[in-house]
């Protein structure tokens, strides 16, 4: 059964104040936590250039914070590219990694100044013939993982055994494959698949050294670095230690990149939603919240996440309850069969670890407005005084 933490109401003043100021539903994003996560991952993957996967939380201030630390940016659509343009990101520190692109996506990225792209099949390779003098390609390999929560090698990726042929074809066409990339999945439980993938890539880079127009000099190890939702995950240094060891086997001319999204922003996000309705049905309290799986909790559907939840209550007694979202749809339920202290209309329910793939995949169903996103500079729930907060639109402007 899903656990809901009961926090002493005295410690809820900080959140109640924020909820009062900004309204609910609201996603609070702690920029200091993002900095901390970035620096932790940098330290755990020495020498690896980090490209933030902005799809996780495509927010201008988040991008600015990471740009300030020297991060690069991973984009997968022309809309994401426009967001980077608005934040004035140097296009040289961006990579376009969607394996499937329309010609106009390629042209828009080139106009922006992004010249690194990803392919995983012949059709996609041929799309780059007109631009072959301007671009550098990464070939994405697939490594199927039974281990990851989200398997990213099913839909995309070239089987490693087919790679040499594709590299030879590219060489014949005069198209430069400058490196390899892979995504073993999201929320990996162990680094075993990363290690395996790096080893295979290392072999391919060495075997094809003399095939292409130039040796491959880039390896992009994707993401998959886990954060804790409903279970403990290893510390990032523990997780990456075997990967770092394996990366040392690569030829010296190869630089390594990674595309973290979730790891950088998930722990920085806290959602505040309010109880807007309450009913006793069939022996359980049903609590209706002002956001649900069509909004901030969309990651429970699309991202298979179960966010740690908390309420503010002093009473020890717990009753069976259901936390439901505000839409008319009966699947809009955040948590069923949970034991909760009795809540009242206006009470706050808090969701932790909600920075990644939450607001990013929220829908506008029922014409409910999206939750507001508030970037905080520092997280001070133990203080009675609020940290200075600035507000920004919840979603980027459409291009």
């Amino acid at each position: 059964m899903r656990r809901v933490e009961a926090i002493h109401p005295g410690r809820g003043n900080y959140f109640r104040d924020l909820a009062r100021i900004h309204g609910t539903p609201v996603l609070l994003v702690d920029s200091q936590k993002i900095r901390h996560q970035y620096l932790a991952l940098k330290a755990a993957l020495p020498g690896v250039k980090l490209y933030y996967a902005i799809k996780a939380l495509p927010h201008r201030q988040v991008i600015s914070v990471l740009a300030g630390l020297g991060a690069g940016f991973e984009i997968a659509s022309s809309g994401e590219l426009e967001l980077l343009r608005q934040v004035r990101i140097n296009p040289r520190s961006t990579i376009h990694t969607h394996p499937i692109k329309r010609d106009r996506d390629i042209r828009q990225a080139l106009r922006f100044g992004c010249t690194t792209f990803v392919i995983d099949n012949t059709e996609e390779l041929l799309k780059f013939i007109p631009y072959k003098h301007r671009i550098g390609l990464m070939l994405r390999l697939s490594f199927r993982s039974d281990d990851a929560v989200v398997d990213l090698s099913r839909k995309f990726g070239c089987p490693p055994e087919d790679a040499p042929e594709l590299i030879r074809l590219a060489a014949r066409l005069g198209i430069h494959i400058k490196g390899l990339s892979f995504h073993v999945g999201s929320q990996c439980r162990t680094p075993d698949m990363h290690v395996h993938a790096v080893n295979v890539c290392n072999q391919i880079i060495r075997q094809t050294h003399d095939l292409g127009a130039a040796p491959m000099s880039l390896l992009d190890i994707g993401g998959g670095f886990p954060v804790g939702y409903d279970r403990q995950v290893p510390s990032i240094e523990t997780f990456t230690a075997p990967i770092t060891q394996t990366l040392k086997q690569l030829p010296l001319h190869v630089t390594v990149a990674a595309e973290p999204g979730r790891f950088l922003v998930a722990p920085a996000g806290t959602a505040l939603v309010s109880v807007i309705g309450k009913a006793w049905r069939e022996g359980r309290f049903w609590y209706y919240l002002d956001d649900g799986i069509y909004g901030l909790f969309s990651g429970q559907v699309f991202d298979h996440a179960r966010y740690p939840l908390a309420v503010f209550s002093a009473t020890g007694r717990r009753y069976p309850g259901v936390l439901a979202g505000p839409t008319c749809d009966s699947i809009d339920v955040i948590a069923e069969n949970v034991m909760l202290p009795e809540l009242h209309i206006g009470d706050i329910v808090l969701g932790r670890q909600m920075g990644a793939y939450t607001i990013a995949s929220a829908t506008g169903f029922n014409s409910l407005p999206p939750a507001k996103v508030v970037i905080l500079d520092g997280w001070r729930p133990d203080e009675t005084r609020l940290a200075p907060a600035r507000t920004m639109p919840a979603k980027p402007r459409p291009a």
Partner: protein
Amino acid sequence: MNRFAETLYDSYGQEFRVDELLYEDKTDHQHLVIFHNAAFGRVMALDGVIQTTEKDEFIYHEMLVHVPLIAHGGAGRVLIIGGGDGAALREVAKHRQVDEIVMVEIDSGVIDVCRKYLPGHSAGAFDDPRLELVIEDGLEYVTRTDAKFDVIITDSTDPIGPGESLFGERFYRACHGRLLPGGVLATQNGVCFMQLEEAAATARRFRSIYTDWHFYSAAVPTYVGGIMVFGWASDDPQLRRLTRAEIGRRYLQSGIETRYYTPEIHRAAFALPRYLLEAIGKACNAAC
């Protein structure tokens, strides 16, 4: 101190020291910047790609304009597509026998910015009484107009960007219909060593439309990667077969002053390297 790194190519590129940022316009659709650099003077870049600089623009604009005008010999009506910086216009205006210049630029903002920040490019030519300035898409203009011209010049951006339609078959065909007998089209066609496909694609289109076509070249320092090429398309094969003496006579007669263009360069510019001839499907430079 800031630096500007051109993002034209993934594995190669030029970089400038930005001694002073003079103008920046960053919209959702394009990024225009003008800065001062010690070696090249004022430099304008669009979407991360160098468009023109004060120091080396004369090479490009003199070759773009004087080769077709001198070759034509008696051009009275000239159409310029693009060229918002005004430098192609400035060079055309040097020719006294030209009595009508139509310039079609899609973005009036570019003209305003260039008149202010690159005043030497137009050097007052926007005030020339022979000029009719049209703010319109170049393809739309040549498709709709009834006017005909002795010389059409396209001074465009690269095919990736706002200039895309000026490299298409529809545009080349419409220009063909706008040329007077003995007329010629001259186009900006990129740095062929780096962008061979650009010239090759234009060659395929010229082949089906014009009786006589070729390319001619010049080396412009900030269009990096070797020579750049200009497209040449006409129904009059004699225009690119003038003798050195005839070109020299016309040059003297025109009275124009140039810093790059000479009659010898005019003739020599049509001699293309072998790899380019192969890309455009020609066996030789001579009578092909």
